[in-house]
């Protein structure tokens, strides 16, 4: 290792070992590189496992949901509300002026064109993650006729938009697609 002799002398100790020798730097580099590479599997294992990732889509049959009703389905461990809105409700939602909204968003942008009656949102309050009421029959729908979160009193309208209470944002709309007119795939 003649190469190493060219390195600077100041690292020498009383035993004449020069710590800054090239070979020792390379050796230290291997320790660092090896440790970094070995760390990867231990970090990666915390990400969702293959079986968890495989559950990332769910198919929902809409046929049994009558107008005015809603269902809850589980998707990736979270509830999703699927609501069949009567025409009057859709009209009312579209009439709301954006200036009244905390998180301004048009109803048209929250549903899929041609399926305007179907509102699909996550059933997770954007305040602190409780599940709002209003999807099942007999549950309070809140002051705006949509969903009501009992934890801290957030009211959502029939478009899932936040209208009153501490929640900052509208209920999230997951990615979904209509497979047939009466079936959707979420995720």
């Amino acid at each position, binding site marked *: 290792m003649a190469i190493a002799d060219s390195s600077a002398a100041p690292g020498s100790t009383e035993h004449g070992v020069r710590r800054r020798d090239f070979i020792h730097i390379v050796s230290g580099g291997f320790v660092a590189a090896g440790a970094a590479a070995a760390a990867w*599997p*231990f970090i990666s294992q915390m990400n969702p496992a293959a079986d968890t990732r495989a559950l990332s889509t769910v198919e929902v049959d809409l046929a049994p949901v009558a107008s005015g009703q809603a269902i809850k389905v589980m998707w990736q461990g979270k509830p999703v509300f699927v609501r069949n809105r009567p025409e009057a409700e859709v009209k009312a939602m579209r009439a709301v002026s954006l200036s009244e909204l905390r998180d301004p968003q048009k109803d048209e942008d929250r549903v899929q064109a041609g399926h305007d009656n179907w509102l699909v949102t996550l059933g997770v309050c954007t305040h602190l993650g409780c599940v709002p009421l209003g999807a099942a029959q007999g549950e309070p729908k809140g002051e705006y006729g949509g969903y009501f979160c009992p934890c801290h009193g957030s009211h959502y309208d029939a478009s899932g938009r936040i209208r009153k209470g501490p929640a900052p944002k509208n209920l999230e709309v997951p990615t979904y697609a209509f497979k047939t007119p009466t079936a959707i795939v979420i995720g």
Partner: protein
Amino acid sequence: MGFHWAKKYEPQSGLEKWLDERLPIIRLVHDSVGAGYPAPKNLNYWWNFGSLAGLFLVVQIVTGIVLAMHYAANQAVAFDSVERIMRDVNFGWLIRYMHANGASFFFIVVYVHILRGLYYGSYKAPREMLWILGVVIYLLMMATGFMGYVLPWGQMSFWGAQVITGLFSAIPVVGDDIQTLLLGAPFVGNPALNKFFSLHYLLPFVIAGVVILHIWALHIPGSNNPLGIDVKGPADTVPFHPYYTAKDLMGVVAALIVFSIFVFFLPNALGHPDNYIPADPLSTPAHIVPEWYYWPFYAILRAFTYDFLGVPAKLWGVLAMFAAILLLFFLPWLDDSKTRSARFRPVYKQLFWLLVADLALLGYCGAAPAEEPYVRISQFAAAYYFIHFLILVPIVARLETPKPLPKSISEPVLPGAAAQPAE
């Protein structure tokens, strides 16, 4: 601790000085595994196995904590959760194979470490505490390894738990009650699995604690060396860092190469196929064997087949198996030869190699089915084990004439020099 010529730690910067006055942690490292620890200059490669044991303890703790993030200690799902780790968790197969083979490698390096201590007399005064703490670590390792093997809840896990806890039932009067206490039920089931998981997670940290005591006890007299004579002065030592840190790094990389060959290319070679069959309380495997590192002691356990003095053979086996390990605690006093290293003890040296061969033979018998000729071989081999430690070693210590010792580590033996009085 240590030697007056040890290099004192001098803080290099204001920050180091500030830290040193409040928490002298850099000083601690410097004095224990740094330039401030003078180690004998003649340590050979057998001295690498101490740091390797530390390496595999760390591997086991790190991989074990990660496995516990995915493992479920319930008899209904334990096997499934392990298979999920193997199939679905990202790199789960790698981490589990590291843990399973890491246990074997931990034992391999610890066995070499122990045998090195036996050969070079590292257990002798003034290192008795160091040796005793080492035996404590070994006992904790055996308990940890056994309980860890139960966790996958395969056939060998289940029947291993049955057989090992069954050992305690050999104790007169209270034996059955003790076995029930250990299992938390009159059978091997969920209470045992949960308990073993909890303890399997706890004990490695206890081991790590005792390892710190072990290293502390090492630093009081300093390391033994292949000559087994005391360090006399600065010429006999080199600073631990960089000399032995570089040597240990070399050993670590070599060990990782061998470890990787097993993990990546022979991951199940040290395991037993039956543990890939889920536990079934209704069917015992044809041939129950423990993990390889228990084979010699398993052979001693099974070698007792005669109700000697009216005591049941089963109880003899259990007593002998525990005695075989516990007698190591007394070794520093059983062997009171003043000469440490077997290099200068011609008779002890031969006995040592006989013991190594005997342990190999016991291990072979421990893995074999309980049939002839293995039972008879293991009876002679087990007898030698006890004769070696309890009879021959104390006698040889008294009767043997050691070879002359060199003056010091730095001065080789002078031709024709008179025997030096041993330290």
